[in-house]
């Protein structure tokens, strides 16, 4: 993914048209919140939101990783020593994530190509779990607000991990 850098002079004058990777955090965390009492809590959607948050948490780590690799000067031992640490923290974070399989698929589709027709693999992978758990709740109830609170907690935790 191309990232607009501050140099050379003037490069930033035009904002980059948004890619999903740039805005996924605002899509998930911002925007009008319809009251829980008039909203339907759709379990399938709640799970999606959690999955997507995990992807968001990884994006900044990936960007940092890409940059660290780009900067890497093999001759300088100091910098090279920092990399295994970074690597370790990323892989341990990944191992803790229960939804790693879904994450891989989601990551590809979120930040990969734009072709919707190739969704099938991704769907198979994450969809099987979805199908069993989706559409359990179509009642308007407090459960909507409590489960969204749950996913918020999850997101701040994954943020700390990254």
């Amino acid at each position, binding site marked *: 993914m191309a990232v*607009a850098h501050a*140099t050379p002079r003037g490069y930033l004058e035009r904002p980059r048209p*948004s890619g999903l990777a740039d*805005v996924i955090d605002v899509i*998930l*965390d911002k925007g009008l919140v319809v*009251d829980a009492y008039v909203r339907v809590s759709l379990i399938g959607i709640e799970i999606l939101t959690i999955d997507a948050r995990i992807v968001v948490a990884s994006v900044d780590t990936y960007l*940092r990783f890409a940059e660290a690799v780009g900067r890497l000067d093999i001759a300088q031992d100091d910098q090279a020593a920092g990399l295994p640490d970074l690597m370790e923290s990323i892989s341990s974070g990944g191992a803790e994530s229960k939804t790693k399989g879904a994450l891989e698929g989601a990551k590809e589709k*979120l930040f990969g190509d734009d072709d919707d027709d190739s969704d099938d693999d991704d769907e198979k992978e994450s969809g099987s779990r979805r199908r069993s758990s989706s559409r359990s709740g179509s009642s308007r109830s407090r459960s909507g607000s409590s489960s969204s609170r749950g996913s918020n907690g999850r997101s701040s935790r994954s943020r700390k991990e990254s």
Partner: protein
Amino acid sequence: MPPAGSLVYVYGILPAEEAANASETGVDGRAVRTITHDGLAALVSEVHGDALSAAREVRAHWRVLEKASEHATVLPVRFGTVMESDDHVRRELLEHDADHLGGLLRELAGRVQLSLKGDYDEDALLREVVARSPSIATLREQVRDKPGAAGYYDRIQLGEMVAAEVARRHEQDERSALAHLQPLAVRARAEQPSSHAQAFNLAFLVERDGVDDFGRAVAALGDQVAELIRIRYVGPLPPYSFTDVELSAGSAAWV
């Protein structure tokens, strides 16, 4: 009317007269349509909740809003908002919150969101922290000479001092970026940076015809901080960060 058993996924709210004929495909692969009431329109599609995929649905949600906001002021609704029926959308959202929604639409008309994320060059940041603090530099030398366990507590102390210094830097860099750009924006919001390597995460609400001026200010800021911070400047976006409002149904919707 949608068939029985289906629910309604809500993308956003816009003035009814700006609601173009939406032919987009939305979440769950369904066609996007509008529900209108008294000058307000909601962008919606059916949803059944089977076989949803995080990647596909988030992307669909985003596309529908991107498309709609090309020629309209759109209040984006939080991802994953589902209501029971068209009638619920009409009564409990468009009618019930008409004043609130109308007010927001008037306030945001002709304005766009521009986002600015600053990422530290971590090596440069740490070098600067060491260069600016004699006590950190001294302790760093001491820790270097102590092998393994002997320097354990010194290392913790050193790390703590660096963390405090980095936090101070964050605050300072965020404040100066805001001071630089806020005069060109209608409103500004500073979000919590997503990691210690992020210098700032800012959202600005800018008049559509002020985007060029704002961009020049961003470029100037970018040059100013180039040694330490790389800026990602993205937009224009629907005003996600400025519609971060909870609509309260109140008691009326319940009885």
